[in-house]
């Protein structure tokens, strides 16, 4: 009988890498989504063009290829990243591109009358966005951002291709060393699901907090 405690330790190491990738990936995806999403709504055509190019490129090519570029091709251009950095970069930018469309759609979903109230109150475009449109749009974004974050979590498993020992990778290691298949993969399943539930739960709480008062019920 193999040393299960040791193998579990291995899996938890992998779980930590997966958590790190998810958190850092989201930390990059969120600003990328806002920059590109608001960029698409800019008055300046150059800003719009850059945003659209970013969004279409990262949505239109595979995350595998993006990861290989970040890890194997960028060094040829003199930019060498650690596997973790390459993983975060590819995941963050990839999911950020999807998030950008969420930001754009949410801002556009705010009614014209809110824009007009801002003009009538003489707010600048930036003030309107910052104080009136984005706070309302953010409420609309949260459920879809929750989806995106879970997608990002699940996409982290691709980093095993660039030698990063994430959760999925470690499960493979344990499997090959012990010959046991069901147990390591069951553990992986449970951990991924626990992570996803955590994200889901956190986002629900955030959504509840943000919609407080909007429906007329004081809570």
């Amino acid at each position, binding site marked *: 009988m193999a040393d299960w405690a040791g193998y579990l330790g291995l899996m938890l190491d992998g779980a930590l890498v997966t958590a790190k990738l998810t958190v850092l990936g989201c930390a990059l995806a969120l600003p990328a989504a806002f920059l590109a999403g608001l960029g698409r709504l800019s008055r300046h055509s150059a800003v719009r063009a850059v945003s659209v190019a970013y969004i279409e490129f990262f949505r239109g090519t595979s995350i595998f290829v993006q990861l290989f570029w970040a890890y194997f091709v960028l060094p040829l251009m003199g930019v060498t990243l650690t596997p973790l950095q390459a993983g975060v970069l590819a995941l963050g930018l990839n999911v950020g591109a999807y998030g950008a469309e969420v930001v754009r759609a949410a801002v556009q979903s705010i009614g014209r*009358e*809110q824009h*007009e*109230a801002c*003009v*009538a*109150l*003489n*707010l*600048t*475009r930036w*003030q309107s966005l910052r*104080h*009136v449109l984005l*706070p*309302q749009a953010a*409420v609309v974004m949260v459920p879809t951002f929750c989806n995106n974050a879970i997608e990002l979590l699940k996409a982290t498993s691709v980093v095993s291709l660039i030698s990063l020992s994430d959760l999925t990778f470690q499960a493979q290691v344990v499997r090959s060393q012990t010959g046991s298949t069901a147990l390591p993969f069951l553990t992986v399943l449970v951990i991924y699901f626990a992570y996803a539930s955590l994200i889901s739960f956190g986002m629900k709480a955030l959504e509840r907090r943000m919609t407080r*008062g*909007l*429906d*007329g019920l*004081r809570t």
Partner: protein
Amino acid sequence: MTDAIIDIDRVTKRYGSHTVLQDLCFSVRPGEKLALIGPSGSGKTTILRTLMTLETIEGGTIRIDGESLFQMERNGRQVPADEAHLHRMRTKIGMVFQLFNLFPHKCVLDNVTLAPMLTKGVRKADAERRAMELLDLVGLADKARAMPAQLSGGQKQRVAIARALALQPRIMLFDEVTSALDPELVEEVLNVMRMLGSTTDMTMLLVTHEMSFAHDFADRVLFFDRGRIVEEGPPEILFTNPTHERTQAFLKKIIAAGQRI
């Protein structure tokens, strides 16, 4: 007319091939209370929206305080106004909308204080003190911490009036402010406007379907049809003795619909 606060000179406004305002001319004296009446689609609301810079114009000139709204001078030439010019011109004008357009994510007090703090740099404490005075004025001081969704339509509209007043505009535009309200809530909003009309020297332009209110409130009434002023005059003359047949037909319809003038 040089002492006019608003001077509209041969203004034309089109949506595509549809002309909403055609060579429109009129001016407003400082402090004047003006009611714009007429059938739907006659261009009344468009005038208010244009004054608030929510619409552009295709021809003519609008002057506020003698200064062109959509044009500015640069190197001795008239050029289209930039954001800074519009921003400066908008400080003179406030608007209240048919559907209130309150910010649903902010409480009543924050709705009123937001613009003074952002556009005039008023400190929070001062902005809140002033906002409470205004909310008191419109009878809603006890609702300062309520969210807009908790208010009735009439209360929302009174908050919207307080919010517009907080910027101390010299001109106030009221765009069918009671049209979206349940009948029993109309009067509380009209009362606030009556009080403003009698206690301030603000210039007020009012688009309304409340003819009896227009009659009592306005110094002058403009009757619009198809983007033109058909007839204008003091309310006691325009309402009781209109000369133009289209005005007569319009007022007849209004009376037939049950309104008292």
